[in-house]
């Protein structure tokens, strides 16, 4: 007896369907199938005290993290699909055929936390503020200023951005977590967004409390413009300074999430995994570049030879191996894992001065130092007391001693350090991680290398760097853009006298409590920390 092929297929399909149905009945529910559970407080941490809370005017992660859930952007990265830009306060947007005019159509009926209506005037006030040439906006302003010519409110619910040129990174930049929309009436009332009272947004959470050095708290916004969200009653960010304190809090189950800077090092992750079985520990990149900054406006590093000497002396491989316990990409100005083929191939990077085998570099660097300082040189080395920066600084001191530069450490509390660096009150910053606000390759240059870069702490200016970065930003042809970025990376690596020195891209370990649902890490450390769709299972 034979069965026809079609009957066999039908039987097989039926058997598969039965198996799937049975499987679904007996399998435990997955996160996607679970019904979101409202309520609960999410506890996590800030690595330091924010001090000031103006998301437009500051650049430390702690400032953005402390205020993330309070504000909304025109656009943002999708909490469900973190690589995708989706609407937030703008319902939709259109772009002109020449790619130079973007029109955002705003949601209607949105209210600020104080009950005032949200309109296009708020958007205009926000972006006029960050684009003001006299206003120092190291994140949102630094990324938008090169691209945006003007912002106009067409009507109460329509805003138009005129660009200087068709710029590919405009949409990712406008969706950046640093380009949040603030209320015009609040900016008028307080003049800035630094105080806790000025934290009035349209976001899923309201600002509840900020106790300096202790905690930042948000509470649920019951009038959030997306009905049913957020699920959480609130979020608490404990201000935990120093690796041992952070790890102790994690081990004692005081925090549910570690998806922030600084990442855990391998030994810390192993220690946590031994202490807690109710967490998922994972390794990831944090889209952050580890940099050393030299003050090019002050002796001795106003001298190009001495900047070059430091660039040659820094052993990036040792710093990544010891300070990051091997989790990082040494030497790269752009990380191929994050920037794809915009990044110069690593085998080429490895041959650059400062990255190649050290003997030759050390000998050259020594000669450069001896040329100007035959008896060596004594300098003060500044470092913020956060993460394992002090360890990194000690490694750097050890490396600089090999070329006759004797350093003494000057440590700064986190916010005080930023203030000192911003004023140029340093000779050398031993280490400073700079996180990218967008995943576009332009970000790193507008953060650390161009004259107007938000973190150009060394106040270094090189017209060729500015020109190449600008041309790459304007270039719409992908291959040509890639060639421009390669040329820029090659130029920086070969010249070796820039005041911003790339050590490597930081990777590390993170954890989330298994009870935490619908939380997906963002592509940058700044994204997806509003917790608008996150909930806590029983």
């Amino acid at each position, binding site marked *: 007896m034979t069965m026809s092929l079609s009957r066999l297929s039908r039987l097989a399909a039926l058997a598969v369907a039965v198996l799937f149905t049975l499987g679904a009945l007996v399998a435990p529910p997955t996160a996607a199938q679970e019904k979101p559970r409202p309520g609960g407080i999410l506890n996590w941490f800030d690595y330091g005290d924010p001090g000031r809370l103006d998301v437009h005017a500051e650049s430390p992660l702690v400032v953005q993290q402390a205020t993330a859930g309070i504000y909304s952007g025109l656009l943002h990265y999708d909490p469900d699909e973190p690589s995708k830009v989706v609407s937030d306060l703008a319902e939709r947007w259109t772009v002109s055929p020449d790619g130079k005019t973007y029109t955002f159509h705003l949601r209607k009926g949105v209210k600020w936390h104080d009950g005032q209506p949200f309109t296009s005037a708020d958007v205009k006030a926000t972006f006029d503020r960050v684009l003001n040439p006299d206003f120092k906006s190291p994140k949102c302003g630094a990324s938008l200023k090169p691209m945006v010519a003007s912002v106009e409110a067409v009507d109460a619910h329509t805003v138009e951005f005129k660009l200087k040129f068709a710029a590919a990174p405009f949409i990712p930049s406008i969706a950046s977590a640093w380009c949040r929309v603030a209320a015009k009436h609040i900016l008028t009332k307080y003049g800035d967004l630094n105080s806790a009272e000025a934290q009035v947004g349209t976001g899923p959470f309201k600002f509840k409390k900020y106790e300096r050095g202790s905690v930042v708290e948000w509470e649920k916004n019951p009038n959030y413009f997306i009905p049913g969200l957020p699920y959480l009653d609130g979020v608490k960010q404990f201000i935990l300074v120093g*690796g041992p304190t952070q790890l102790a809090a994690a081990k004692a189950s005081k925090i549910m999430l570690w998806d922030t800077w600084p990442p855990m090092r391998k030994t810390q992750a192993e220690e946590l995994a031994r202490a807690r079985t109710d967490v998922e520990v994972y390794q990831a990149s944090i889209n952050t570049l580890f940099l050393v900054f030299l003050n090019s406006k002050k002796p001795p590093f106003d001298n190009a030879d001495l900047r070059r000497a430091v660039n040659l002396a820094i052993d990036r491989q040792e710093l990544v191996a010891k300070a990051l316990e091997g989790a990082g990409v040494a030497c790269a100005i752009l990380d191929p894992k994050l920037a794809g083929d915009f990044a110069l191939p690593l085998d080429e990077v490895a041959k650059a001065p400062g990255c190649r085998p050290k003997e030759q570099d050390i000998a050259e660097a020594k000669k450069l130092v001896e040329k100007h300082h035959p008896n060596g040189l004594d300098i003060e080395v500044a470092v913020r007391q956060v993460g394992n920066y002090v*360890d990194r*600084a*000690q*490694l750097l001191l*050890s490396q600089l*001693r090999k070329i006759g530069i004797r350093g*003494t*450490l*000057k440590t700064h509390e986190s916010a005080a350090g930023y203030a000192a660096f911003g004023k140029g009150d340093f000779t050398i910053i031993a280490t400073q991680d700079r996180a990218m606000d967008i995943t576009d390759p332009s970000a790193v240059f507008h953060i650390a290398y161009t004259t107007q870069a938000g973190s150009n702490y060394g106040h270094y200016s090189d017209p060729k760097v500015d020109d190449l970065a600008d041309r790459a930003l304007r270039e719409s042809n992908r291959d040509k853009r890639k060639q421009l970025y390669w040329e820029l990376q090659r130029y920086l690596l070969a010249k070796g006298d820039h005041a911003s020195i790339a050590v490597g891209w930081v990777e590390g370990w993170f954890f989330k409590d298994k009870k935490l649902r619908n939380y997906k890490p963002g592509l940058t450390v700044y994204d997806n920390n509003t917790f608008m769709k996150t909930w806590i299972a029983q």
Partner: protein
Amino acid sequence: MRAALARFVIGQPLGAAGALVVLALITVALFAPVLAPHGPKDAAFAPYVAPGREFPMGTDQLGRDLLSRVIWGARLSLYVGVVSVMFGITLGAVWGAVTGYLGGAADTGSQRVVDSLMALPPIILALSLMAALGQSVDNVILALVILLTPTAARTIRSVALGVAATPFIEAAQAAGASRTRVIFRHLIPNCMASYIVLVTTNISYAIVVEASLSFIGAGAPPDEPSWGGMLTAGIQALETAPWMVFFPGLAISLAVFGLNLLGDSIRDLTDPRLRGGLG
């Protein structure tokens, strides 16, 4: 000399043990450049190497030889201890002796200053001073001098009051000796026994305060091989590399133990009520 030494060892065996530890500490501190196999700040090796033949005390999180750091740490601790105590106790002793002898408003006023300084918890005072002065070994010494001076002033003043009431001081005054001569020729030399005891007992105190300040990140700069600073680094890797805490901790304990034993013995020997060991 040999007989006196033998009597000291027999009469004060714990003191002799303390002296031996202190002697070892001084030797290690003086000959640190010769004794340390590697530079204390050279991060030239693999991190977290367990104690073994190559690195008897292991390496730290940056790949520095812990033995070398502990040896150089002895030099730093002893330097901070001795210099701060010599300045602090000497300054306090002169202050206490002079104001105690002069009496009146000078004495009352100075004692109120001493009261206010002593009212502040020492570690809080030291922390505030370090926050104001900035992190450096010299500033640790300055903070310790400010901590030690009032204690010495108070102690030596009480001794000076007793000495000032003795007949030989009255005789010097009757013979027309100036105040300066009486204080520096007769009064202070007769307070020396208490001064020596204060010096020996406070070196260990200064070492502990320096280690405590460095432990909480407010003492010597982080790259200096301070025992307290080494403990801080060790705490961060307690499970991975317990030797990073064990050896600097042992060094602090031994140094303080030795100095305290020696200090107690010297006190016993200089106190007439307890004297008898050396005959």
